């Protein structure tokens, strides 16, 4: 019963979403309060219904109910519990259901906690959110129904793609989806503002925390996906410019730009029209990413759904939402009041610069990702746009942006003083120069650009710290008062500094891991030793082993440094029984922030085996930096000042409310 109830709940949600698409918006346009008031309870109702539906599917997975086609095709009774659960979204239908669940979850958050958002804006926003929901529910019900049944069910399922039987990949899609879909709320806010023809000052204050929330999850999701590819694919790389990766990078870049332009809008009422456009683009790129992954237009590592009917449907949705919102933008944007002016050298100016470079970088990634597809469609010519293209375009666009980052927070609003800003950053500049010289001394001319990269990273990190220190005049007012002032700084100031520091860490990791990576590819026979970056790696032999649902050949390696054993690594080649699918598991030794990475190739007849060994200095900083960035975002979300209109003391003290995301108040 639970399965069919889940199915019915999904259909009912579709009907309810249709109502939600119309009534509150009509109410908002006609200033009819009861009609607007429909939005909040219905948004919660939609969440409960889709949630029930999701539970129904999960229950079917947990009980191995193979009368559900989706379960039969993607599960297996012998699968470990955790992968039965992750199997729910490890397939096309389930992942779209999760997508919709997150969509209505964000709607419900606005409905429940947006009590201070002006009623027309809230109603219109929830209506727009319901348009997207309706579109994707239709997509689910008519092309990808997860509740299709088999009247006489088979007794065993067909298992899950073993490459997906990984804890990293079990968590990665939900994180990424929260990021992707979180941008839908910003989109709905933007379209609602266009429909109502009015952008309140309050608008920016609500948009920024929502964007931040989505951005935090998107950052974590991308970092997690990158780490997963690093240790699971066995290629030793952490970013492949794979179209699926690019699909998540593009909304991230535009989302980051949006985050910064929303600051200008919030503080200075500038860049309104531009911010709206960014909000539309950010979610459009999320939709595009969903299209690329879900339609199977790219046959790539992640694309596990291939069905042209679905592709056409999503393409229709894509055209409808992106085309519709951009048309609306072209029509309504000129009517919006423009905000305050500012000098080119000012915090606004710096943020505009940030936006320019981020948007240009997003455009470069966009072209690099879609050009091969477009060319294939138009001329039939097959080309590939790989890392060299992106290194040549994305890299040069990032460098000036990163150079400018420390200036942003130290410049004043409206009219800045570049000289004064430089004075506040001289320490960072000095340390960066020292770092560059030190690197040249350490590595000589081995890689000419790398020390400059290290210098850039130091400049970013020290610049972030310097901003905080000079802001409270730590050295002028004495340590004690200075620290007190530091603690008293608003969350957004801390968030900015932490996030910018994280960017520096990621840059440092990227530079050192790519420029100073030590790599050996060789065939080793038992007993042989290879020396790499001060480590002696000895190959002891290959041993077969049995896992719960796979067989593997494990390479046994002993890692010594200065003669002492520091670790034993066991990279392996696995064959999953149900699907006879081989996978590679890398062996990784972490020392500080650096890693030694071992990946196994084909075994030779004589007991030898192909081995690829890397030493990647400071490589983990790439992901740690992303986590730090996300943490900065979180700190900024919880900045009390963002909770506009928390007028009474009693309410702001209420703990339960202050723990809720952001925008809320």
């Amino acid at each position, binding site marked *: 019963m639970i399965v069919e109830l889940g199915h019915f709940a999904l259909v009912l949600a579709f009907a309810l979403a249709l109502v939600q698409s119309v009534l509150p918006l009509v109410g908002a346009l006609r200033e009819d309060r009861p009609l607007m008031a429909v939005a909040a309870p219905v948004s919660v109702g939609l969440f409960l219904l889709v949630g029930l539906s999701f539970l129904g599917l999960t229950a079917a997975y947990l009980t191995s109910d193979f009368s559900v086609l989706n379960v039969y095709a993607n599960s297996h009774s012998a699968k470990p519990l955790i992968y039965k659960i992750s199997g729910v979204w490890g397939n096309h239908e389930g992942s779209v259901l999760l997508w919709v669940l997150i969509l209505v979850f964000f709607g419900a958050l606005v409905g429940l906690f947006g009590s201070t958002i002006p009623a027309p804006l809230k109603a219109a926003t929830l209506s727009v959110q319901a348009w997207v929901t309706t579109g994707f529910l239709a997509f689910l019900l008519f092309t990808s129904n997860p509740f299709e049944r088999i009247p006489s069910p088979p007794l065993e399922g067909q298992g899950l*793609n073993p*490459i997906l039987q990984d804890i990293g990949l079990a968590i990665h899609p939900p994180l990424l989806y929260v990021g992707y879909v979180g941008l839908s709320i910003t989109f709905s806010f933007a379209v609602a503002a266009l429909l109502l023809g009015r952008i309140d000052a309050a608008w920016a204050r609500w948009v920024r925390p929502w964007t931040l929330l989505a951005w935090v999850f998107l950052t974590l999701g991308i970092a997690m996906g990158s780490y997963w590819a690093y240790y699971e694919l*066995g290629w030793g790389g952490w970013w492949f410019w794979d179209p699926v990766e690019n699909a998540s990078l593009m909304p991230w870049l535009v989302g980051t730009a949006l985050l910064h332009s929303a600051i200008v809008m919030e503080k200075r009422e500038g860049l309104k029209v531009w911010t709206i456009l960014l909000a539309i683009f950010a979610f459009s790129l999320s939709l595009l990413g969903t299209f690329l992954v879900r339609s199977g237009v790219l*046959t*790539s*590592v992640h694309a596990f759904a291939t069905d042209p009917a679905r592709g056409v449907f999503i393409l229709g949705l894509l055209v409808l939402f992106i085309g519709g919102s951009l048309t609306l933008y072209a029509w309504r944007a000129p009517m919006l009041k423009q905000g305050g*002016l*500012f*000098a*080119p*050298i*000012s915090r606004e*100016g710096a943020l*505009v*610069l940030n936006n*320019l*470079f981020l948007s*240009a*970088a997003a*455009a*470069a990634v966009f*072209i*690099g990702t879609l*050009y*091969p597809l477009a060319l294939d469609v138009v001329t039939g*010519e*097959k*080309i*590939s*746009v*790989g890392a*060299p*293209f992106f290194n*040549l*375009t994305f890299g*040069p*666009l990032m460098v000036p942006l990163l150079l400018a980052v420390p200036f942003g927070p130290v410049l004043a609003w409206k*009219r*800045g*003083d*570049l*000289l004064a800003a430089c004075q506040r950053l001289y320490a960072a500049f000095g340390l960066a120069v020292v770092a560059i010289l030190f690197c040249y001394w350490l590595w000589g001319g081995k890689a000419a650009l790398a020390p400059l990269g290290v210098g850039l990273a130091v400049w970013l990190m020290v610049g972030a710290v310097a901003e905080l220190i000079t802001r409270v005049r730590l050295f002028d007012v004495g340590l004690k008062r200075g620290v007190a002032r530091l603690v008293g700084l608003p969350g957004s100031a801390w968030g900015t500094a932490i996030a910018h520091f994280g960017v520096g860490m990621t840059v440092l990791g990227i530079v050192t891991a790519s420029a100073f990576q030590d790599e050996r*590819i*060789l*065939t080793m026979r038992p007993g042989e030793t290879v020396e790499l970056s001060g480590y002696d790696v000895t190959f002891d032999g290959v041993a077969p082993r049995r896992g719960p649902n796979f067989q593997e050949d494990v390479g046994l390696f002993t890692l010594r440094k200065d003669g002492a054993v520091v670790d034993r690594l066991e990279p392996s*080649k696995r064959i999953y029984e149900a*699907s*006879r*699918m*081989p*996978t*590679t598991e890398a062996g990784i030794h972490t020392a500080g922030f650096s890693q030694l990475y071992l*990946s*196994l*190739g*084909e075994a*030779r007849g004589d007991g030898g085996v*192909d*081995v*690829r060994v890397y030493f990647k200095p400071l490589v983990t900083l790439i992901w740690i930096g992303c986590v730090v960035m996300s943490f900065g975002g979180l700190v900024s979300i919880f900045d009390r000042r963002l909770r506009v209109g928390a007028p009474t003391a009693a309410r702001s003290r209420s703990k339960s409310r202050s723990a809720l995301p952001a925008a809320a108040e």
Partner: protein
Amino acid sequence: MTRTDAKTMTRKQKRLTLIGAAGVVLAAAAGLILFALNDQIVFFQTPTDIVQKGIPHGQRIRLGGLVEEGSLRRSDDARVDFVVTDTTSTIAVTYQGILPDLFREGQGVVAEGVVGPDGVFVADNVLAKHDENYVPKEVAEALKDKGVWQGQN
């Protein structure tokens, strides 16, 4: 630009400066993209293309086809040599590194690299994707054109 300049700027000048800066950045970005598209994209070729067109030595291409049965030879230092065929022509490929899990004789493969002066293709990247029945998209289409491919799709 100094502070006094900024102060004395009119509204119009401020706008123009901004638009100018934006124009410069966008023009630079567009230039970079066009340059990179001209220079850094890699064309997909089958062995027949290479034999007929005569790809200049040193130009990066993606070579796609089937790994010829019985052609795989492994030597020390993880070096592998194999032959890629589209059943009309063949190209010898040499590669140092770890082959992907799904690399098999008789299966589709895409190798990226350059044709050496001796006519041997030196690959620095070999791809086979994570699907047992997977034949790289380009390979499947190229083979279908030749009427060799008998896959379901």
